[in-house]
């Protein structure tokens, strides 16, 4: 069975202890978006500054467990400075990484293939350390909270 070291890799604990991009940005020009995990009360607040199709800056507020905090911190590092389209690709690849376990449980081969396709060719780097989370199904929502919030924020910016 999965042990604590599968979940809490050193890189995760590092991001948890020293989260990157903590803080706030003035709104406007930045866009503010909140995400909640109704199961545990964790909340994430993202400040997104998108200029000329580039995620120019990201700041993070809110509170949560080590998994949600580390995931948010790594996410900010992964998308900051990237074009919005590339950020969305990273989001999809990360969500695919998180959904493999659920697909296995559900037994839908198409989903697994789709997830594998999303993953192929996208370098997630440090984010792959979060792969262990899928062995702890209850914690997947902790890891994906900020990514869903980022999607929501980018959608809201695109709609404006």
């Amino acid at each position, binding site marked *: *069975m999965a042990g604590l070291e599968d979940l809490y890799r050193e890189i995760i604990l590092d991001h948890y202890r020293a989260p990157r991009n903590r803080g706030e940005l003035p709104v406007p020009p930045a866009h503010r978006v909140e995400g909640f995990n109704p199961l*545990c009360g*964790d909340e994430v607040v993202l400040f997104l500054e998108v200029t000329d199709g580039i995620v120019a800056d990201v700041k993070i507020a809110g509170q949560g467990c*080590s998994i949600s*905090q580390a995931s948010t911190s790594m996410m900010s590092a992964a998308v900051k400075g990237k074009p919005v389209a590339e950020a969305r690709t990273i989001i999809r690849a990360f969500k695919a990484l998180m959904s493999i376990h659920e697909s296995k449980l559900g037994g839908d081969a198409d989903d697994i293939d789709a997830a594998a396709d999303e993953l192929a060719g996208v370098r997630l780097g440090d984010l792959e350390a979060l792969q262990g989370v899928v062995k702890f199904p209850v914690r997947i929502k902790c890891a994906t909270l900020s990514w869903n919030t980022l999607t929501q924020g980018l959608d809201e910016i695109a709609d404006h």
Partner: protein
Amino acid sequence: MTLERTALDVARIREDFPLLDQTRNGHRLVYLDSASSAQKPRSVMQAMDNLMERTYANVHRGVYDIAERTTASFEAARSKVAGFIGAREAAELVFTRNVTEAINLVAYSWGRANLNAGDVIVLTEMEHHANIVPWQMLAAERGIELRWIPLTLDYRLDLTKLDELLRGAKLLAVTAMSNVLGTVNDIPRLVAAARAAGARSLVDAAQAAPHLPIDVQAWDADFVGITAHKMLGPSGIGALWARREILEAMPPFLGGGEMIRDVRKDGFTTNELPWKFEAGTPAITEAIGWGAAIDYLETLGMEAIHRHEVEITRYALHALEQRFGDRITIYGPTDTEHRGGVISFLFPEIHAHDVSQVLDEDAICVRAGHHCAKPLMRVLGIPATSRASFYLYNDTDDVDALVDGLVKAEKFFSL
């Protein structure tokens, strides 16, 4: 601090709970989440199995033998539950799915018949969402004002302005015991103050009924909600108690079979109490299981169960303090006077989820999160706590396992 023995013979009791007899990762399962839902003794499972194997049929319908026997068992279970909480008669006990449904029943039926724009409902800051959201829904629909009894610094209700808060109120809705803080509220005093102000009172006894002797008549409350699954019974059944005259004056809640006396194309008349509020086929097997759970509790005695839990709680509070001192914050009264066996705690540097995760590796089950009390969490200024809760099958070994697990968690997440 050592505790040689408590009011209960826990080793003997544990033999009745098959689930507790298991190990994971080489660790004995330590179940410290009874405030969420309690484990079940074999007698409850057997009562439910017996019914299904021998006499199961729908209730109040068939004239054949097994239907009559099931109906008799079902109504006997109702009488047992009614007796357990000190009700005058079984007809005052309406089966629901849980306390949430009991409170919603009151909000929909009594609330919509009696509350209008400008009326006031008084709640407390330590309520469970089940005793908040139904009132918020009604408040939004009718333009009702909600007032909140605040907390004191020692996590009890601050009653210094109680009369002021209750002025003009139509209802006081309060928990008998906080599922987060463990605080046991002075229900007779609160109900008396509400009555003096002309307000009805509703008591959420989901946490109190499994752990304390309760007497709805001594409380003098108007509505009381209880649930089976926290008191060794199955999930899916709970009850609303209210005095006959109040229930008779209330319009029905859910419409359907069982709750009617007659139905014609142009309308219906309602059944007698308590069936007036029990539309549809009820949770028959679960009611029988609940009856068996009450037999189990009454054999041990609620006074003894309460004394045992006070002793375990005192031991646990002391052990946590001794071991972690200022590094741990306990959200709840630090003395065991008017306090149940629920201990919410937090290490400032470690999130409650992470603590639970580490404890889980040693097969220690505690709850982490907001415990369905987000307004309380906001008052406390935290997103979540870890919560250990005790019942009649827990002993000091369980507390020691918890403390050892927490030492491990602290080490794991040390900066």
